[in-house]
């Protein structure tokens, strides 16, 4: 191999290694920062790994929003129509947060079993429903319909 060829080979090899390292880093960073979405039903069924940071979504239950009188602390319930999760949050809410609205919260379940949110998202369109929330509500409805069907079957001899 001529010296020029050798140098060129080293250059190409180091390039490939460089891109490989970048790809490996990107994939591991992706995996580390990946956030799963769970519905209130998933939480009730203990599908969430303990201590995990994740997103939960649903409709804000009417009458469930309770505010502190001297700080920005608040609590509210979110439901997928089958199960409900209690969420605690401190800070500013998005403009479209209101009772009955579909929202998504980011955070983890605290030791007391309450979901501690670090961020609450509501979309800037009244008619818009976060797709995850929409799907989880549909799923909950289907399951309750099935359950009814089954109980109806067991009742009829």
């Amino acid at each position: 191999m001529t010296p020029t060829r050798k140098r060129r080979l080293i250059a190409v090899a180091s390039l490939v290694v460089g891109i490989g390292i970048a790809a490996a880093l990107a994939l591991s960073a992706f995996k580390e920062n990946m956030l799963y979405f769970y519905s209130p039903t998933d939480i009730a069924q203990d599908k969430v790994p303990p201590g995990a940071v994740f997103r939960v979504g649903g409709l804000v239950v009417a009458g469930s929003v309770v505010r502190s009188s001297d700080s920005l602390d608040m609590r509210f319930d979110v439901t997928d129509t089958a199960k409900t999760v209690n969420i605690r949050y401190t800070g500013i809410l998005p403009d479209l947060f209101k009772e009955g609205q579909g929202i998504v919260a980011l955070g983890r379940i605290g030791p007391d079993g309450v979901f501690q949110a670090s961020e609450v998202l509501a979309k800037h369109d009244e008619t818009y429903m976060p797709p995850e929330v929409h799907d989880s509500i549909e799923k909950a409805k289907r399951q309750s319909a099935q359950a009814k069907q089954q109980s109806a079957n067991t009742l009829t001899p």
Partner: protein
Amino acid sequence: MIPELGHFALILALFVAIIQAIMPIAGAARGHLAWIGMARPLARAQFGLLLLSFAALTWAFIQSDFSVAYVANNSNSALPWYYRVSAVWGAHEGSLVFWMLMMSGWGFAVTLFSRSLPEQFLARVIGVMGFISAGFLLFILLTSNPFDRLVPAALEGRDLNPLLQDVGLILHPPLLYMGYVGFSVAFSFAVAALLGGHLDAAWARWSRPWTTVAWLFLTLGNVLGSWWAYYELGWGGWWFWDPVENSSFMPWLVGTALIHSLAVTEKRAAFKSWTVLLAILTFSLSLLGTFLVRSGVLVSVHAFANDPARGVFILTFLGVVVGASLLIYAWRAPNIKGGGRFDLLSRETLLLLNNIILVVATATVLLGTLTPLLLDALKLGKISVGPPYYNFMFPLVMIPLVVLMGIGPLTRWGSASVGELAQRLRYTIIIAVIGGVAITWLLFGKASVMVIIGSVLALWVILTSLQSLWRRLRQRDGAIAALSAVPAAFYGMTLAHIGVGVLIIGVTYTSAFSSEKDLRMVPGQSHELGGYSFRFASIEKITGPNYTAQRAQVEVTNSSGEQVAILTPEKRIYRVQTSPMTEAAIDGGLFRDLYVALSEPLGGDAWAVRLYHKPFLRWIWLGALMMAFGGLLAASDRRYRIDVKQKRTHAEPINDPALAAQQ
């Protein structure tokens, strides 16, 4: 009647586009002069028809013609006239007509500024653009006709989304679309060159100014988007890594790579195949961005549209465009002759590294944007990746790029020596490192590793850019002779690179030294933040043209007790859509922004309030504006306007050593 006229003009435009896609290309292939001659009139007719159609739609908005469904859904008779005009591109259907208007406008511009191009080549360019136009017009007419009537007509419109009633929306989409669509010109030039088999330095020279102009529009569009999100979304961020932002950022990254690789192809006749691929990739990413935004697949504040038929159409069209152009590439690429040779250490190699890094950066963004969608489509779970992923990856990829950026312009084409480079750069490196550390320490009195890296890199880019300009100037005696001997393109590059340095300063300092506080405040209460005192003075009720609002008055004083600003943030309720909107109040400055947003009433006179102190925020946009202005300077360079048709006959052999030698 007028909406039908607009609709009819769109249908005619589709027929013109189909003829435009076939005749000139067939003419160029068979050497049929009359068919080749059809290119210009067809492209101009296309532009005229779209202008007519767009005017008809605008007319319907100004007249508040609520018998047109699109107008009824996105306007209101109480809307001020300027928002009625900008509402034309405020939602899906109209923004596509607007997109097409720009597309045909670019085609029209090509027919005007192409006197120096060979007719055959021009015919192919116009033909490829006609093909793309036909696809989009078909899309509009089949799935998203803005002229559909509403029977019976609505009495009143549902109003424009309040979020979009803003000067940012008047300007942001037009600039962004100009950029997106502008890359179709670079794409068409590349495909035309492949079809004709003349992939040479002359082709690169013709496409450079077009690519640069498209890039500068995309730069401005991204800056405006960031500015709009900063003050209108109300929560003080300037970049969210939202999929919609990503979909305009990816073409920008690859477009930046394309600009640099075109330079190599023009000056050294190297990287030809690579440059063509980049041109195809850039426009494909523009189309992908359109798909992501317009199909409603995204979970995002921008995804207003929601209709699977649209998504399938764009995805199919994307497949056809990418597939066809890659097929043409595979068919023609073996004929592309090898480019000029260069050594391992040369400006060519450094620009190749620039390209690789920018493509890797694009891939990083693409991975973060598309993977959640793919997993969801395959029912493998609903996931998302947030800013932490990008904030980890981006500095990692960009730091080497910025280091190289300082070296590149000071390195010789063809072959450079390590010793010479080290000699040129030794003092610059020392000054950048010492200066970077000193500046952070003097300004803030404290610094983390990332802040020092950011400061040193910014200084490094700015110093090396000035140094390479200085080397150029020194070649001539006399200040004026020296200044005028340097081509505009060189000034453009220098300014754009310094802009990168300025942007790095903004990003670094804003990220590291911003402070924010969410508070419960009652009138009379004060809070200290970032050396300023914010006093919540009062709150009052006001009435706007189509909304009512609560407006607070917040007095800001500095540490010596002088009043620096009175900020009046608002909480608006729009009458028709009844959704609350936060209008933040900002006192902007070169070295700091003070930002107050009203969140919600907490009972009594108490409000939830967010306060921000953001140092050096404006430097981010200032840097990006310098980059865009640098692009303008580069595109205005005189050498793009000289008659290349005559030149081409001399420069025909691609590997002509004479061509390679002249830089």
